[in-house]
């Protein structure tokens, strides 16, 4: 027998609801459901098979495909450049308060543990206490921070850190940037300028796993600089994690890590299977 559009409508409506309740953005939820409907309408299904289970397997495959798209090993990329004697720079960008500064500290520690030499650029020259916060984190893990004064040009700080790294044989430069609203044209332009000037090897988007539909808008606008991947934070707050799906779908790039707490070891590689199981009932 074949599965009809009518069968699918009811089953997919329930799946769309579970996507929405898991914080997958409305736009992405609708796109996923429409793609599934096209894919499955008229599909042959065994006489003894359960239609709902048949669709569930297809949903799992689709979600996994989105999350595994362009998956890569960031440490492999860093190692390639280190072997070639080149420094590897990473800019961390995102909306206000998502966990950029803390994620940089965690990632920096991860790199130190793997034997890399790291320096951090304090390119958030705007927010009160940002330079002190970053410097204290860096001090705790034993990484040098390149900083200028508040009000300095963020691009200049990043450029300075990269020059410093080249001169001192540092392997990796991590660039902390100010939180910014995707709706603030000036701040989005400032970020584009930093990327032009510093030309980082990677641009990582840091998103809050508790955020709802705004995360889709953020992912879209921040994609203008060409993102290479994302980090999803505050997963320990028991967020469902649907934001990962929105971000992956919209940016076409993988979630690299998840933030699972406020400690320096609370950064884990992202596992698509874990998320799919969380989202689907």
């Amino acid at each position, binding site marked *: 027998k074949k599965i009809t559009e009518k069968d699918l409508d009811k089953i997919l409506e329930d799946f769309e*609801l579970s996507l*929405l*309740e*898991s*914080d997958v953005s*409305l736009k992405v939820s609708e796109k996923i459901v429409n793609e599934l409907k096209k894919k499955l309408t008229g599909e042959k299904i065994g006489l003894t098979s359960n239609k709902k289970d048949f669709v569930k397997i297809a949903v799992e495959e689709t979600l996994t495909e989105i999350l595994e798209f362009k998956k890569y090993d960031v440490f492999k990329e860093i190692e390639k450049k280190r072997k070639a004697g080149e420094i590897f720079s990473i800019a961390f960008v995102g*909306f*206000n*308060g*998502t*966990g950029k500064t803390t994620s940089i500290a965690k990632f920096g520690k991860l790199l130190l543990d793997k034997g890399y030499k790291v320096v951090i650029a304090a390119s958030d020259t*705007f*927010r*009160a*206490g*940002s330079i*002190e*916060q*970053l*410097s*204290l*984190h860096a001090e*705790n893990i034993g990484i040098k921070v390149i900083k200028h004064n508040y009000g300095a040009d963020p691009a200049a700080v990043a450029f300075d850190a990269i020059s410093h790294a080249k001169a001192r044989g540092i392997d990796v430069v991590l660039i902390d940037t100010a939180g910014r*609203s*995707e*709706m*603030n044209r000036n701040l989005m332009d400032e970020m584009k300028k930093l990327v032009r000037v510093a030309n980082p090897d990677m641009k990582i988007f840091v998103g*809050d796993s*508790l*955020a*709802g*539909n*705004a*995360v889709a*808008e*953020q992912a879209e606008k921040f994609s203008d600089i060409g993102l290479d991947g994302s980090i999803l934070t*505050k997963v*320990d*707050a*028991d*967020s*469902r994690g*649907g*934001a990962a799906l929105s971000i992956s779908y919209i940016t076409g790039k993988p979630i690299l890590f998840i933030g699972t707490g*406020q400690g320096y070891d609370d950064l884990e590689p992202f596992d698509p299977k874990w998320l799919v199981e969380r989202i689907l009932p």
Partner: protein
Amino acid sequence: SLSGALSGALRKLTKAGVVDESLIKELVKDIQKALLLSDVNVKLVFELSKNIESRAMEEKLPKGVSRKEHIIKIVYEELSKFMGSDTKKEHLPDKKGKVVLMIGIQGSGKTTTTGKLARFYQKRGFKVGVVGADTWRPGAFEQLKQFCAENNIPVFGDPKEKDSIKLAREGVKFFKEKVSDIILVDTAGRHREEKGLIDEMKEISNTINPDEVTLVIDGTIGQQAFVQAEGFANATNVGSIIVTKLDGSAKGGGALSAAAATGAPIKFIGTGERIDSIEPFDPKRFVSRLLG
């Protein structure tokens, strides 16, 4: 765009002379979409749309009111049930030495909002004191001090003090002795899964006995808003809500759930990173934003 679709559906309804059931259903579907996009709780959206639809179909059109105006009024009334009040108020301190405790999830905007609130009251002639009782986040006191500095708002804190309860108590005592009108206490971010931090918050609250506990909620929060706010409400008596970051693309629908979970009114909204980017909550404007 969605707001285009919504206003298009409304226009069709205005043109229709009688109650067109299909037009109402179409409009309710568009309202559902707008509310979901605005991060209103999924179950609440469906509950609301059922109520809106049945009221739109069954209620007699009041004299002098168009069908479109009537439906908008219904939507507004249904949403207002969650907001505590339907008028914009300024919420000024009603006694000397009023103590307000600022709580919320990591990164929601507590420290920034504490400074904004201090400036808001200072501008209106009140003597304000700010206590930095976040002993966890590196540079927390420095952030608060720098943010409040250019307006000469006094900030009490000690980056070397690890006991947040002691710090909160001493800070409140310090400003009560200075006869401040209002004392704002900033605390570390925490969420409901961090039992130790939730217990710390309870202890701070029991020690300084605040006149008001304000939950600072990130305007971008999605479907977790209700259960997260509930976590705070179970631990302490939340007296008010401030929704931040509404200058982003988020419409703040999660704030409705937070209000429902805590039973507390939304008093202010944050609209940017500057110290003056705070406004008293305006329910009418909030609802019209939710609807796109």
